[in-house]
Each structure stands twice: as structure tokens, then as C-alpha cells.
């Protein structure tokens, strides 16, 4: 069989060309332009300014480093907040609960909604004066729990994690459920006969057999967390003050104000962080493929 004839190489051209021109090229240009003073007033004339943008990011009093740290913090915390409840929920639904298909449909529903919509809806729900959350707390005589959810420095991150969990738990749960469904029931029966309790089963059967689902959840979760923008932009726009700024919100602000060079410098930092993590994950996946 002539492979060249049956599988023509030109089948690759369209996606590869689009990927290179509109994905890769902007990324490379981003790195190059981050060393220039590119801004809204520079008309085709860019000056090479070396590391000045980066020095500005790490030394200025504008808290850019805080934004970078916030991105990392969000990535870690938001994933913990979602993955553990999602796993518990999946285990609960797995064991033949009545109406579980309904629950699955309902729990997954928020993750299909546009972030913008979720953000707008929760801007209203978390409103201090007459938002739904404080109204419900009032009605339950839990006034002491009432908060300025989006404007109190000590509470705002928790609100963001809460909204993000509302959106994302069902998504993670669905992936866990698929993994759980593939574990043979006989394993659990055998373990029960040997006198294993819930935690033994979790540690020795469920978690090891779920490694595929856990990997997928972690990969999705990491990339989502590092690139987070919409939900924070709509809920707090980085505020109060600069409390909830992340890399992408700073980067957008700089872009909107015409500081393109600075904006791409911040993007390049994000690019570097995700590339390191991405390369590790792709390597891991290609190794797994060899093993199969």
C-alpha cells in the first residue's frame, strides 16, 4: 500500500496554517514586542527597550507581582475547592441513588452557561442591600453572616471561589463519574468480604482506578485557573482596590489604556508559566501513550 497516496499530506495544511498564523505567530510576536515600547501612539515605529517592561512589572508600585501571585493562588485554591466536593458528590451519585440522572443534569447545568452571564447574575445575588444571598440569610435569622460579598477585602476572594465552585463542581463531578463507572463492582465486593471500610476502599480501589479522571480534571483545572479572566472581570473587575487582580485583568487594562508592550510582557509571563506546565503534561501524556 502506498501510504503517500492514501493519506495525502496536504490534508494537514488548513488547520496547521491557521494554527501557525493566528495562534503561534501572535505568541512569538508577543514575546518580541514585550521588549519594545509599543503603545497606542507608536505608529509603526517601535523602539527596543530591553527588559524595561519586565523590570517595571516586578518593581513598580502597581502590584503587578501581586496579580501574578493571585493567579497562582486562584489556580490552586479554586481547584481544591471544586475537586474534593466533586469527588464526594460523584461517589455519592455513583451508588444507585434514586433520581441520580436528574441530579447529574442539574449539577452540570451551570457549567454550560457563559461566564459573563454567571458574573452578572451573581453581581445581583451578592449585592449587599437586596441581593438574594443576604435576603435569604435575613429570612433565616442568620444576619450575623451577612457580608459585603464583593466589596469587603476579607470576603471578596471567598465570594469568587464560591461562584467558581457553583459553576464548576458539576463539570468535575461528571468527569469523576465517568471514571467511577469504569471500575468493576466486583472489586468493591471482594474488598467488603475482606472487611474493608469506606476509607480503605477509597484509598486502595477508587483513587488508583480514577487516575485517568484525576489527570483530566487537573489538566483542565490548571489551564482554566491560570487563564482565568471573565469571571473576575465581570464580578469585581480586579477590585476592591487591586485585591482581586490577576495577570489577565492587568493585561487587559494595559491593553485598553494603550500600553501594548507592557500588556504583552504580562502575557509573556503567563505564557512562560503555562508553557512549563503544558510541556510537563504533554510529556506525561506521550509517555502514557507509549505504555498503552
Amino acid at each position, binding site marked *: *500500500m502506498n*501510504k503517500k*497516496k*492514501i*493519506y*495525502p499530506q496536504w*490534508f*494537514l495544511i*488548513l*488547520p496547521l496554517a*491557521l*494554527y501557525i498564523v*493566528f495562534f503561534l*505567530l*501572535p*505568541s512569538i*510576536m*508577543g514575546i518580541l*514586542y514585550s521588549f519594545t515600547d509599543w503603545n497606542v501612539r507608536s505608529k509603526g515605529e517601535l523602539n527596543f527597550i530591553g527588559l524595561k517592561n519586565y523590570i517595571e512589572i516586578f518593581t513598580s508600585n502597581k502590584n503587578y507581582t501581586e496579580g501574578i501571585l493571585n493567579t497562582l493562588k486562584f489556580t490552586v485554591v479554586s481547584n481544591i475547592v471544586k475537586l474534593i466536593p466533586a469527588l464526594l458528590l460523584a461517589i*455519592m451519585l455513583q451508588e444507585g441513588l434514586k433520581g441520580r440522572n*436528574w*441530579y447529574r443534569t*442539574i449539577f*452540570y447545568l451551570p457549567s*454550560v*452557561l*457563559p*461566564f*459573563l*452571564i454567571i458574573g*452578572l*447574575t451573581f453581581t*445581583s*445575588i451578592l449585592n449587599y442591600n*437586596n441581593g*438574594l444571598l443576604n*435576603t435569604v440569610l435575613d429570612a433565616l435569622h442568620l444576619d450575623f453572616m451577612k457580608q459585603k460579598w464583593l466589596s469587603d477585602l476579607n470576603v471578596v476572594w471567598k465570594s469568587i471561589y464560591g461562584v467558581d465552585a*457553583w459553576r464548576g463542581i*458539576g463539570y468535575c463531578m*461528571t468527569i469523576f463519574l*465517568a*471514571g467511577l463507572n*469504569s471500575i468493576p463492582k466486583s472489586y468493591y465486593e471482594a474488598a467488603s468480604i475482606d472487611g474493608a471500610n469506606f476509607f480503605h476502599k477509597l484509598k486502595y480501589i477508587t483513587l488508583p482506578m480514577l487516575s*485517568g*479522571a484525576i489527570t483530566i480534571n487537573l*489538566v483542565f483545572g490548571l*489551564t482554566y485557573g491560570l487563564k482565568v479572566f*471573565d469571571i473576575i472581570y*465581570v464580578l469585581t473587575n480586579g477590585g476592591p482596590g487591586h485585591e482581586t487582580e490577576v495577570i*489577565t485583568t492587568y493585561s487587559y487594562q494595559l491593553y485598553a489604556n494603550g500600553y501594548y508592550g507592557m500588556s504583552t510582557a504580562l*502575557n*509573556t509571563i*503567563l*505564557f512562560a508559566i*503555562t*508553557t512549563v*506546565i*503544558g510541556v510537563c503534561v*504533554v510529556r506525561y501524556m506521550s509517555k502514557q501513550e507509549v505504555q*498503552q
Partner: protein
Amino acid sequence: MKKTLQNIIKQIVCIFLSLIVIAPFYMVVINSFKTKGEAARMSLRLPTEWVFDNYIQVIEKGKLLRGFSNSLLYAVVATVIAILGCAMAAYIISRRKTKFNQFVYYFILCGLFVPINYVTLAAVLKGFGLADTRLGMIIAFTSSMIPFCTFTIRNFMVSIPVELDEAGVIDGAGPVSLFFSIIIPLLKPILVTAFILEFMAVWSDFMTPLYLSSKSATWPMNLAVYNFFGKNQQYWNYVFADIVLTCLPVIIVYLLGQRYIVSGMTSGAVKE
């Protein structure tokens, strides 16, 4: 006895969580039918007077029809191009395992993690004369989907036996007709899944239009709603009506295509 008690507790937990999920939806829908003053109180009570006019107002004032047709155009065209192109690429990558093709595959996979640099993408589009055009938006959406589509379709392609290709060749099929008449029908499940997931992704995407479209003529529904909200923050009745209209299409697609979504998301989550 212990089992039934356990089940009751589980049911209570699930019902409680379902209420937490559904309450915001209920609040938005019910308040979208109230007058301005009543909607601002954001309560869960039924409206004293049902105001259907809110919807007509937002569709006219918020220019939602144009936003809707833009969103539909971007979502359908970008997704179809990306899926067809990526299916062809995935076919070659999984069938002709040359060093070059393997490299191309992992090279494209990197795009799953790397963030798009919108600032320079806007400059590239401008260079092609595509800034602020519908075609430019479609190209931006299509290229952003390529890593994910190539990845999922290629994973599925591996399970289609090569013998089918050989049988097709013996029957005298050329490469193009082989691909379109034998491979594409076999790929249908994953193509449907990828279509649904990417359709919803474009519909929900906020960042791409925020960076790339400054003219209201090219705004998708998302951006039209956001800008409308910026101007009408006191009119929660309108905002809620806007939210309902933007959500409806994705919720309908979700309920119809639920089966495919779950199977696509989880391919790879299951150990074989």
C-alpha cells in the same frame, strides 16, 4: 435500616444542592418579568404585574437580534471549519506516523495550554485587513479551537480499524472520497460532540470579542449584553431579560446534546 437512613441523608443533600443550583435561575427568570422598581428588589416573589414588554425592550434597545445572528454565525461557521479541518489533520496524523506528523501533533497539542495573546492577534488580524470584521472573528475562533478538536478527534480516530481504509482503496476510492465517504461517517459521534462543545464555547466566549471587536456591528450577543448592562445598571428587569435570552440557546443545546457532551468530555477519563 442503616442503608435507608443513608439514602435519606443523601437525598436531602442532593435536593439542597439542587436548590442552590436552581435558585439563581429561578430568580433571574422571575425578575425578568417585573417592573423596574420591583426587579431592583430582586426578591423571589412572583411579579405583581407580569411585564412581557421587558423582552421587547431589550431586543430593540440592546440590539440583541444583531448580536444573536453574529453569535450564531461565529459559532456555526467557525466550528464547522475547525472540525472538518481538524478531522482531516487527525486522520493523517493517526494514519501516517512519520516523525514529522508526530511532531505536528504534539506541536498542536501545546496550544491546549498556552494562552492566546490577543494583543498581538489583533495586530496580526489588522495586518491582513481583517480587524473588526466578521471574517476576522471567525478566523480567530476557528484557530483557537484547533488544538482541542485535533486532540479529541485523533483520540477517536485511533479506534477506527485501518483495514477499512484498505478495503476502500481496493474498491477504487481516491483519498478524498475515501475520507469523506468512509471515515467521516464513522467519526460522526466525536464530530457531533466536538461540534456541541465548541458551539457552546464560542457562544460563551467573552474575551475574544472583548479584545477583537470594537465596532458594535461585529459584537456577538455576549458583548452586546455586557455593553447594554454598562449603560442600564439600574434597570435590573432589562438585565435579567437579557440574561434569559442569552442563556436559552446554550441551555437548549445542552439539554438536546447532553449525551454527547458527557461522552466527549470524558473520553480519556476512563481507563481501558
